[in-house]
């Protein structure tokens, strides 16, 4: 366990912020404690390793997009001011009441309303181009904004068309805001400086617009590339999956077929073997029986024949003997007589 004072010394030494006296103090501790020495060596190695890593360069689009977005915010601020002016000027339209005088109506003109919606949409669209409202959230905001503008238009439109009585006093205040028309002499440029200023302003505006459009193009290109890559990846994945599935199915089918064939063959072989065995056994039995019967018959016949022959022989012999003895007896008798 290293105490806090030593941790502090190690930290300072590794960061190169230690004083000579602190270095000496740490060297003393390192001599005494090998654990602290190992810790210090490890920290030094890590520190030099981290220091060797080069910093990243931020993408060029970072500064462009930040400046474009802040420009848009400024424009949006100006747009609000413009919208306020439009709303204020619309209140010029009112009705004239003979009793109470001129009455303002809290209603905006359609021309001014259209301009304010257009200005709002332009601001939103320019934000969208700069990638601020490119997501679902942004689309929802745009949709909500347009819906709100439409709601204002509908509510402000209630009560129209005005009757002739309503509009009878509207000319007077309008005339009040009129001034004499300018002549050709009024619109001549007073000096070349003004035109130069205007030109410079236009150049600055063009440069800003160019940088904004460039950043928008870049971000659009990037998003297009990304989506193309994604879709390519997806299709590649899909085709890979399909082919993998197909090959898997095929191999599965093949193996299933093979195993089915094998099992079928085996069972067929078995049954065939069995039936063959049975039939063989039967036929063998039969033939054996037959042959046995035959041989038995034959032997029986033979023995019967033999015995018959023997008995016949014997009886023949006997009868012959008897006949011979009888004939001998008879001849002896005849002799004796």
């Amino acid at each position: 366990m290293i105490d806090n004072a030593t941790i502090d010394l190690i930290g300072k030494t590794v960061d190169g912020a230690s004083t000579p006296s602190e270095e000496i103090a740490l060297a003393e501790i390192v001599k005494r404690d090998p654990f602290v020495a190992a810790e210090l060596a490890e920290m030094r190695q890590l520190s030099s390793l981290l220091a060797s890593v080069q910093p990243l360069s931020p993408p060029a689009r970072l500064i462009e997009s930040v400046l474009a977005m802040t420009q848009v915010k400024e424009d949006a601020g100006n747009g609000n001011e413009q919208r306020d002016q439009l709303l204020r000027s619309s209140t010029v339209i009112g009705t004239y009441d003979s009793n109470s005088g001129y009455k303002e109506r809290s209603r905006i003109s359609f021309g001014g309303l259209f301009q304010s919606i257009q200005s709002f949409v332009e601001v939103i669209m320019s934000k969208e181009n700069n990638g601020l409202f490119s997501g679902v959230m942004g689309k929802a905001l745009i949709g909500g904004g347009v819906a709100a503008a439409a709601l204002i238009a509908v509510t402000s439109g209630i009560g129209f068309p005005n009757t002739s009585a309503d509009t009878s006093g509207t000319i007077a205040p309008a005339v009040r805001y009129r001034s004499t028309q300018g002549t050709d002499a009024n619109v001549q440029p007073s000096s070349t400086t003004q035109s130069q200023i205007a030109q410079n302003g236009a150049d600055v505006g063009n440069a800003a617009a160019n940088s904004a459009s460039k950043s928008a193009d870049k971000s659009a290109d990037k998003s297009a590339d990304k989506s193309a890559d994604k879709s390519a990846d997806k299709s590649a994945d899909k085709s890979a999956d399909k082919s993998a599935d197909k090959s898997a199915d095929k191999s599965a089918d093949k193996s299933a077929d093979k195993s089915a064939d094998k099992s079928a063959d085996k069972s067929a072989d078995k049954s065939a073997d069995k039936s063959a065995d049975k039939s063989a056994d039967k036929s063998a039995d039969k033939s054996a029986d037959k042959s046995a019967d035959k041989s038995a018959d034959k032997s029986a016949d033979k023995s019967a024949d033999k015995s018959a022959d023997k008995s016949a022989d014997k009886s023949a012999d006997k009868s012959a003997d008897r006949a011979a003895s009888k004939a001998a007896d008879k001849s002896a008798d005849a002799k004796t007589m």
Partner: protein
Amino acid sequence: MSSRVIGTDGQDQELLSRFRSGDTGAFSALVVRYQKPIFNAAYRILGNADNACDISQVVFLKVFECLDDYDPKFKFFSWIYRIAINESIDFLRRSSKHDTLDDDADFEAPESASPEWQYQDRQVSNRIQQALSQLTIDDRTVITLRHFNECSYQEIAEILVLEEKTVKSRIFEARRRLAKLLGDLRMVTV
């Protein structure tokens, strides 16, 4: 080239003063001045260049919109770093899962560097980033501020609104854990 902001707080205050008085060019100068350190801090905490770019944009927009909230008694860089750290941490918590490492991040290599050197440096940087992503957010933050943005202990304490001794012990422990994770790399490269 270091990713630390080069210059003094006096220069920042001058730019801010000009911006407050309507000079939008002063804000552009601030963006140019801080884009690299802010982007690098976000990258080391998030580990993804695209997300770091998005967070950097948010940081500069917040500076643009909330400049009235800035208290001039603190250094401007502490304020903008705090916004960057907080936005990065919020992003990590919102996204719940950390994004994958970005292998194609654009490293700034010396012009004389050979392709092999650049490749090796990129490998080392990615390996370090892998190790950083395994640390806690607190550890990653102090390592990033100390080693990649070269902030002092006092500056880190000001950015993170911590006591300096807390910063010291936190950096020491974070270094220990990182050293263990990078043990093999230190043996090879150092």
